[in-house]
């Protein structure tokens, strides 16, 4: 369907590549061994809205892109040759056809992609806007509605309508597969809260205890909950972190009660933001990117001074990490999929901004450098390592 415009080859082995999805296309940045120099490959799908670009960690070859354009309906593109060529999904995520006389929903865009469990090669999950959950069992070629939630009356009530959600539509996101058990699943909805299944998706139930909602609303109702990003710790799958519209939280299973750990953040920056990043090997460590959520919710860096905050003690305390970042007049922020970590011995951290800048740290957030600018609004950043040829 589409050819790689630059012909650049992915770098295999231990080199890190960044998959950058933006409002007007996708770019891939390949690092050298020291993560100091980056070579750009792109644009791919110039002009397409790319919400998420994800490499399958099971084969480190299959790449899926969630795409739409201003005019055309949504689809999924797939590459198995390092983004040199792309083919469109034969059956992209689509809701079931409504019965005669009923008003059915149609997918506006696929927002989130999650590869399935290591024991289920070829399985992928997708979250959409309007909020829906889909699954592929053939590596992203064909998709079908997954579980009961898309058409369940109670879930549909919790999901609300397009008018109840984020400005470009409420989104089902943060689909998580427990690495110990493919039947243990979580997902979150920007309008509708966090939900869990322990039976492979046959049933889901809300997981909301301890989460706050906007003042004046009823926290017992899932529809008023707005999780922004939920992450499970690979080194301790019983621990989840969440950046929510109303704070930063941690959940240690089997407890079902989220603890607000963002109250330890400095009051000037608050504990509202979009992304949540966890350490691949240390469940006490996580990173967030606060934004201004005062008054009319500017959703910019507080006071125009962007900073990452890190915890090394599971949220008991937070440290500001802003060396190298602008010290004033920087009015961007970072969206929920646009901040990530690699898995090198000394963790690399990466984020893309709403102003189209790509920032990297080779030392776990201690120092930052801008590695690309002038890109479109960045929606998602994933750090990957390709398979050997």
């Amino acid at each position, binding site marked *: *369907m*589409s050819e790689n415009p630059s012909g650049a080859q992915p770098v295999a082995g231990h080199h890190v590549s960044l998959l950058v999805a933006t409002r007007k296309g996708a770019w891939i940045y390949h690092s050298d061994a020291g993560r100091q120099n980056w070579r750009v490959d792109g644009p791919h799908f110039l002009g397409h809205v790319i919400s998420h670009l994800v490499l399958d960690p099971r084969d480190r070859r299959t790449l899926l892109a969630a795409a739409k*354009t*201003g*005019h*055309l*309906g949504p*689809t999924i593109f797939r590459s198995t040759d390092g983004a040199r060529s792309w083919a*469109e*999904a*034969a059956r*992209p995520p*689509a*809701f*079931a*056809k*409504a019965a005669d006389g009923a*008003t*059915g*929903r*149609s*997918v506006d865009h696929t927002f989130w992609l999650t590869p399935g469990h290591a024991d289920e090669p070829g399985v992928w999950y997708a979250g959409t806007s309007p909020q829906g959950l889909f699954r592929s069992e053939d590596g992203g070629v064909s998709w079908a509605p997954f579980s009961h939630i898309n058409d369940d009356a109670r879930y549909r009530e919790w999901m609300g309508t397009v008018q109840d959600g984020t400005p470009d539509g409420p989104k089902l996101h943060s689909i998580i597969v427990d690495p110990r058990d493919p039947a243990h699943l979580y997902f979150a909805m920007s309008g509708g809260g966090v939900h869990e299944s322990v039976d492979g998706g046959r049933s889901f139930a809300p997981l909301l205890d301890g989460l706050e909602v906007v003042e004046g609303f009823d926290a017992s109702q899932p529809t008023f909950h707005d999780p922004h990003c939920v992450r499970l710790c690979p080194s301790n799958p019983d621990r989840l972190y969440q950046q929510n519209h109303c704070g930063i939280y941690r959940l240690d299973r089997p407890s079902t009660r989220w603890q607000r750990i963002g109250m330890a953040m400095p009051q000037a920056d608050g504990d509202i933001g979009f992304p949540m990043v966890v350490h691949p090997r240390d469940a006490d460590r996580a990173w967030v990117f606060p934004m201004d959520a005062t008054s009319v919710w500017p959703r910019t860096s507080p006071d125009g001074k962007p900073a990452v905050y890190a915890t090394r003690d599971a949220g008991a305390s937070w440290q500001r990490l802003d060396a190298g970042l602008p010290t004033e007049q920087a009015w961007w922020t970072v969206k929920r999929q646009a901040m990530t970590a690699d898995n090198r011995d000394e963790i690399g951290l990466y984020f893309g901004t709403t102003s189209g800048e790509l920032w990297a740290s080779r030392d776990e957030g201690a120092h930052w450098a801008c590695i690309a600018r002038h890109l479109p609004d960045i929606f998602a950043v994933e750090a990957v390592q390709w398979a050997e040829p």
Partner: protein
Amino acid sequence: MGRAVKVHIPGALRSYTESAEAQASGATLADVVAELDRLYPGIRFRMIDEQGRIRRHIRFFHNGQQVREPAQPLDAGGELVIVQALSGG
């Protein structure tokens, strides 16, 4: 089925047809689009959603008249123009 309709393909869909024109037949707009999809798999879903509705920023004109519903009958032959309507920046 009738005579084939000459279909003018907008730029956004030429990755499917690799041409600015295509030929398809059908008694209704839905039939013509279904034949286009058989010839160029995937093209239908980019224009018509899973509920059978024409997408918000897609317009169809047959012999100069707008076709607003997929079930609308088409006279045989003539030209079907697919238009990318304004969708913003």
